[in-house]
Protein backbone atom coordinates (compact mmCIF):
# COMPACT_ATOMS: atom_id res chain seq x y z
CA UNK A 1 0.00 0.00 0.00
CA UNK A 2 2.78 2.43 0.97
CA UNK A 3 4.75 1.51 -2.14
CA UNK A 4 1.72 2.07 -4.35
CA UNK A 5 0.99 5.42 -2.68
CA UNK A 6 4.62 6.40 -3.13
CA UNK A 7 4.60 5.58 -6.84
CA UNK A 8 1.30 7.48 -7.24
CA UNK A 9 2.69 10.59 -5.51
CA UNK A 10 5.86 10.37 -7.60
CA UNK A 11 3.76 10.13 -10.77
CA UNK A 12 1.69 13.19 -9.78
CA UNK A 13 4.90 15.05 -8.97
CA UNK A 14 6.40 14.17 -12.34
CA UNK A 15 3.24 15.17 -14.20
CA UNK A 16 3.26 18.49 -12.36
CA UNK A 17 6.88 19.10 -13.32
CA UNK A 18 6.40 18.41 -17.03
CA UNK A 19 3.05 20.26 -17.29
CA UNK A 20 4.50 23.30 -15.52
CA UNK A 21 7.39 23.36 -18.01
CA UNK A 22 9.99 23.07 -15.25
CA UNK A 23 11.59 20.04 -16.92
CA UNK A 24 12.93 22.50 -19.49
CA UNK A 25 16.12 24.17 -18.20
CA UNK A 26 15.53 27.15 -20.52
CA UNK A 27 12.27 27.88 -18.72
CA UNK A 28 14.03 27.81 -15.34
CA UNK A 29 16.89 30.01 -16.59
CA UNK A 30 14.30 32.39 -18.04
CA UNK A 31 13.10 32.88 -14.48
CA UNK A 32 16.53 33.12 -12.83
CA UNK A 33 17.62 35.75 -15.38
CA UNK A 34 16.14 38.75 -13.60
CA UNK A 35 18.09 41.16 -15.80
CA UNK A 36 15.51 40.23 -18.46
CA UNK A 37 12.91 42.23 -16.50
CA UNK A 38 14.37 45.36 -18.09
CA UNK A 39 14.01 44.02 -21.62
CA UNK A 40 10.55 42.56 -20.95
CA UNK A 41 11.72 39.00 -21.64
CA UNK A 42 11.62 37.76 -18.05
CA UNK A 43 9.62 34.54 -17.51
CA UNK A 44 7.93 34.53 -14.08
CA UNK A 45 6.47 31.01 -14.64
CA UNK A 46 8.61 29.38 -11.91
CA UNK A 47 7.14 31.74 -9.30
CA UNK A 48 3.66 30.68 -10.43
CA UNK A 49 4.64 27.01 -10.10
CA UNK A 50 5.81 27.66 -6.52
CA UNK A 51 2.66 29.64 -5.74
CA UNK A 52 0.39 26.95 -7.18
CA UNK A 53 2.24 24.26 -5.22
CA UNK A 54 2.17 26.18 -1.93
CA UNK A 55 -1.55 27.02 -2.16
CA UNK A 56 -2.37 23.31 -2.42
CA UNK A 57 0.36 21.88 -0.16
CA UNK A 58 -0.11 24.33 2.73
CA UNK A 59 -3.62 23.20 3.83
CA UNK A 60 -2.80 19.50 3.31
CA UNK A 61 0.35 19.91 5.42
CA UNK A 62 -1.71 21.64 8.12
CA UNK A 63 -4.12 18.72 8.16
CA UNK A 64 -1.35 16.09 8.05
CA UNK A 65 0.52 17.79 10.90
CA UNK A 66 -2.59 17.54 13.09
CA UNK A 67 -2.48 13.75 12.70
CA UNK A 68 -0.17 11.34 14.51
CA UNK A 69 -0.11 8.58 11.93
CA UNK A 70 0.05 8.48 8.16
CA UNK A 71 -3.00 7.10 6.32
CA UNK A 72 -0.99 4.17 4.90
CA UNK A 73 0.42 3.40 8.35
CA UNK A 74 3.51 4.50 10.22
CA UNK A 75 4.39 7.83 11.75
CA UNK A 76 4.36 11.27 10.17
CA UNK A 77 8.02 12.22 10.09
CA UNK A 78 8.89 15.88 9.93
CA UNK A 79 12.36 17.43 10.06
CA UNK A 80 13.17 18.26 13.70
CA UNK A 81 16.02 20.70 13.21
CA UNK A 82 15.37 24.38 13.83
CA UNK A 83 18.89 25.81 13.82
CA UNK A 84 20.23 27.83 10.94
CA UNK A 85 23.78 26.59 10.54
CA UNK A 86 26.67 27.16 8.17
CA UNK A 87 26.02 23.99 6.14
CA UNK A 88 22.44 25.06 5.39
CA UNK A 89 23.60 28.41 4.00
CA UNK A 90 26.67 27.15 2.13
CA UNK A 91 24.75 24.16 0.73
CA UNK A 92 21.94 26.46 -0.40
CA UNK A 93 24.34 28.89 -2.07
CA UNK A 94 26.25 26.08 -3.83
CA UNK A 95 23.01 24.50 -5.02
CA UNK A 96 21.86 27.87 -6.42
CA UNK A 97 25.08 28.24 -8.40
CA UNK A 98 24.91 24.67 -9.78
CA UNK A 99 21.22 25.18 -10.61
CA UNK A 100 22.00 28.24 -12.73
CA UNK A 101 24.78 26.51 -14.68
CA UNK A 102 22.42 24.15 -16.53
CA UNK A 103 18.92 24.97 -15.27
CA UNK A 104 18.24 21.62 -13.62
CA UNK A 105 17.46 21.11 -9.95
CA UNK A 106 17.05 17.52 -8.64
CA UNK A 107 13.31 17.00 -9.28
CA UNK A 108 13.11 18.35 -12.83
CA UNK A 109 16.37 16.58 -13.74
CA UNK A 110 14.91 13.22 -12.67
CA UNK A 111 11.61 13.77 -14.50
CA UNK A 112 13.43 15.10 -17.58
CA UNK A 113 15.04 11.65 -17.90
CA UNK A 114 11.71 10.84 -19.61
CA UNK A 115 12.99 12.75 -22.68
CA UNK A 116 15.95 10.37 -22.90
CA UNK A 117 18.50 13.09 -23.71
CA UNK A 118 22.11 12.08 -23.03
CA UNK A 119 22.79 15.52 -21.44
CA UNK A 120 20.12 14.85 -18.80
CA UNK A 121 21.44 11.35 -18.08
CA UNK A 122 25.00 12.67 -17.59
CA UNK A 123 23.71 15.49 -15.35
CA UNK A 124 21.81 13.02 -13.15
CA UNK A 125 24.83 10.69 -12.88
CA UNK A 126 27.04 13.66 -11.89
CA UNK A 127 24.40 14.80 -9.38
CA UNK A 128 24.30 11.38 -7.73
CA UNK A 129 28.12 11.37 -7.70
CA UNK A 130 28.02 14.75 -5.91
CA UNK A 131 25.67 13.24 -3.31
CA UNK A 132 28.04 10.30 -2.81
CA UNK A 133 30.99 12.71 -2.40
CA UNK A 134 29.01 14.51 0.32
CA UNK A 135 28.22 11.22 2.06
CA UNK A 136 31.86 10.07 1.96
CA UNK A 137 33.01 13.45 3.27
CA UNK A 138 30.55 13.32 6.17
CA UNK A 139 31.60 9.75 7.01
CA UNK A 140 35.27 10.81 7.07
CA UNK A 141 34.47 13.82 9.29
CA UNK A 142 32.44 11.59 11.65
CA UNK A 143 35.30 9.11 11.93
CA UNK A 144 37.78 11.92 12.58
CA UNK A 145 35.50 13.21 15.35
CA UNK A 146 35.25 9.75 16.91
CA UNK A 147 39.05 9.29 16.69
CA UNK A 148 39.56 12.60 18.53
CA UNK A 149 37.47 11.38 21.44
Amino acid at each position, binding site marked *: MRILASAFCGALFGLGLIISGMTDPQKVLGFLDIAAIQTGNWDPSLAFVMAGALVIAFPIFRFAQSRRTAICGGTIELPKRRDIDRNLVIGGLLFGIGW*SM*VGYCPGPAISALAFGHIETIIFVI*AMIAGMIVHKLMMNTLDQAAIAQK
Partner: protein
Amino acid sequence: MENFTPYSALLGGALIGLASGLYLLLNGRIAGISGILGGLLTSKGPTSGRVEKLAFISGMIIAPMILLALTLIDAQSIVSASWPVIIAAGLIVGFGTRLGSGCTSGHGICGLSRLSARSMVATLCFMGAGMASTFVIRHVIGG
Protein backbone atom coordinates in the same frame (compact mmCIF):
# COMPACT_ATOMS: atom_id res chain seq x y z
CA MET B 1 7.05 38.27 -21.58
CA GLU B 2 6.35 36.03 -24.54
CA ASN B 3 7.63 32.91 -22.78
CA PHE B 4 5.40 33.35 -19.74
CA THR B 5 2.98 30.43 -19.29
CA PRO B 6 0.90 31.30 -16.22
CA TYR B 7 -1.86 28.69 -16.57
CA SER B 8 0.27 25.61 -17.16
CA ALA B 9 2.63 26.85 -14.44
CA LEU B 10 -0.22 27.13 -11.93
CA LEU B 11 -1.74 23.79 -12.94
CA GLY B 12 1.61 21.98 -12.84
CA GLY B 13 2.46 23.68 -9.56
CA ALA B 14 -0.87 22.60 -8.06
CA LEU B 15 -0.13 18.98 -9.04
CA ILE B 16 3.32 19.22 -7.43
CA GLY B 17 1.73 20.66 -4.28
CA LEU B 18 -0.90 17.92 -4.27
CA ALA B 19 1.78 15.24 -4.67
CA SER B 20 3.85 16.73 -1.81
CA GLY B 21 0.81 17.02 0.48
CA LEU B 22 -0.43 13.52 -0.29
CA TYR B 23 3.01 12.01 0.27
CA LEU B 24 3.04 13.44 3.80
CA LEU B 25 -0.57 12.49 4.47
CA LEU B 26 -0.40 8.96 3.02
CA ASN B 27 3.19 7.94 3.79
CA GLY B 28 4.22 10.45 6.43
CA ARG B 29 7.29 11.53 4.49
CA ILE B 30 8.62 14.80 3.06
CA ALA B 31 8.64 14.84 -0.75
CA GLY B 32 12.12 16.31 -1.07
CA ILE B 33 13.75 14.91 -4.18
CA SER B 34 17.37 15.37 -3.08
CA GLY B 35 16.46 13.76 0.25
CA ILE B 36 14.75 10.82 -1.46
CA LEU B 37 17.76 10.31 -3.76
CA GLY B 38 20.17 10.66 -0.84
CA GLY B 39 18.15 8.11 1.13
CA LEU B 40 18.61 5.64 -1.72
CA LEU B 41 22.39 5.96 -1.37
CA THR B 42 22.50 4.82 2.23
CA SER B 43 22.22 1.32 3.65
CA LYS B 44 20.74 2.62 6.91
CA GLY B 45 17.11 1.88 7.80
CA PRO B 46 14.74 -0.83 6.55
CA THR B 47 14.74 -2.00 2.92
CA SER B 48 11.01 -1.16 2.64
CA GLY B 49 11.88 2.54 3.02
CA ARG B 50 14.25 2.34 0.07
CA VAL B 51 11.69 0.48 -2.05
CA GLU B 52 9.19 3.30 -1.39
CA LYS B 53 11.74 5.91 -2.41
CA LEU B 54 12.54 3.97 -5.55
CA ALA B 55 8.79 3.75 -6.34
CA PHE B 56 8.50 7.54 -5.99
CA ILE B 57 11.45 8.18 -8.33
CA SER B 58 10.12 5.63 -10.85
CA GLY B 59 6.71 7.34 -10.84
CA MET B 60 8.43 10.68 -11.45
CA ILE B 61 10.07 9.34 -14.62
CA ILE B 62 7.38 7.00 -15.96
CA ALA B 63 4.41 9.41 -15.75
CA PRO B 64 6.06 12.12 -17.92
CA MET B 65 7.29 9.34 -20.23
CA ILE B 66 3.69 8.22 -20.83
CA LEU B 67 2.54 11.80 -21.50
CA LEU B 68 5.33 12.22 -24.03
CA ALA B 69 4.79 8.81 -25.66
CA LEU B 70 1.10 9.51 -26.17
CA THR B 71 2.04 13.00 -27.45
CA LEU B 72 -0.40 14.48 -24.94
CA ILE B 73 2.00 17.28 -24.22
CA ASP B 74 4.24 19.55 -26.23
CA ALA B 75 7.21 19.76 -23.88
CA GLN B 76 10.96 19.95 -24.28
CA SER B 77 14.09 19.81 -22.18
CA ILE B 78 16.87 21.79 -23.77
CA VAL B 79 20.35 21.77 -22.25
CA SER B 80 22.54 24.44 -23.78
CA ALA B 81 25.57 24.02 -21.50
CA SER B 82 28.82 22.30 -22.56
CA TRP B 83 29.85 18.86 -21.25
CA PRO B 84 32.29 20.09 -18.57
CA VAL B 85 29.67 22.56 -17.33
CA ILE B 86 26.95 19.86 -17.24
CA ILE B 87 29.19 17.56 -15.18
CA ALA B 88 30.36 20.33 -12.83
CA ALA B 89 26.77 21.55 -12.36
CA GLY B 90 25.54 18.04 -11.55
CA LEU B 91 28.31 17.54 -8.97
CA ILE B 92 27.64 20.92 -7.34
CA VAL B 93 23.84 20.42 -7.28
CA GLY B 94 24.23 16.94 -5.76
CA PHE B 95 26.76 18.04 -3.15
CA GLY B 96 25.06 21.36 -2.33
CA THR B 97 21.55 19.94 -1.89
CA ARG B 98 22.82 17.27 0.51
CA LEU B 99 24.98 19.74 2.46
CA GLY B 100 22.03 22.14 2.71
CA SER B 101 19.59 19.28 3.53
CA GLY B 102 17.22 19.99 0.66
CA CYS B 103 16.39 21.45 -2.72
CA THR B 104 13.54 23.28 -4.45
CA SER B 105 11.02 20.61 -3.39
CA GLY B 106 12.11 19.80 0.16
CA HIS B 107 12.88 23.36 1.26
CA GLY B 108 11.00 25.36 -1.37
CA ILE B 109 7.66 23.57 -1.27
CA CYS B 110 7.48 21.25 1.76
CA GLY B 111 9.56 23.50 4.03
CA LEU B 112 7.72 26.70 3.19
CA SER B 113 4.40 24.86 3.63
CA ARG B 114 5.51 24.03 7.18
CA LEU B 115 6.58 27.67 7.68
CA SER B 116 10.06 26.39 8.58
CA ALA B 117 12.58 29.19 9.16
CA ARG B 118 15.42 26.87 8.09
CA SER B 119 13.73 26.23 4.75
CA MET B 120 12.99 29.91 4.26
CA VAL B 121 16.70 30.72 4.71
CA ALA B 122 17.71 27.86 2.39
CA THR B 123 15.21 28.96 -0.29
CA LEU B 124 16.47 32.56 -0.14
CA CYS B 125 20.06 31.24 -0.45
CA PHE B 126 19.51 29.10 -3.54
CA MET B 127 17.15 31.56 -5.26
CA GLY B 128 19.54 34.44 -4.54
CA ALA B 129 22.64 32.52 -5.59
CA GLY B 130 20.82 31.16 -8.67
CA MET B 131 19.81 34.65 -9.81
CA ALA B 132 23.21 36.21 -9.08
CA SER B 133 25.03 33.36 -10.81
CA THR B 134 22.71 33.50 -13.86
CA PHE B 135 23.44 37.21 -14.12
CA VAL B 136 27.19 36.56 -14.11
CA ILE B 137 26.93 33.66 -16.61
CA ARG B 138 24.61 35.45 -19.04
CA HIS B 139 25.58 39.10 -18.75
CA VAL B 140 29.11 39.29 -17.39
CA ILE B 141 30.88 36.24 -18.86
CA GLY B 142 28.51 35.71 -21.77
CA GLY B 143 27.88 39.40 -22.43
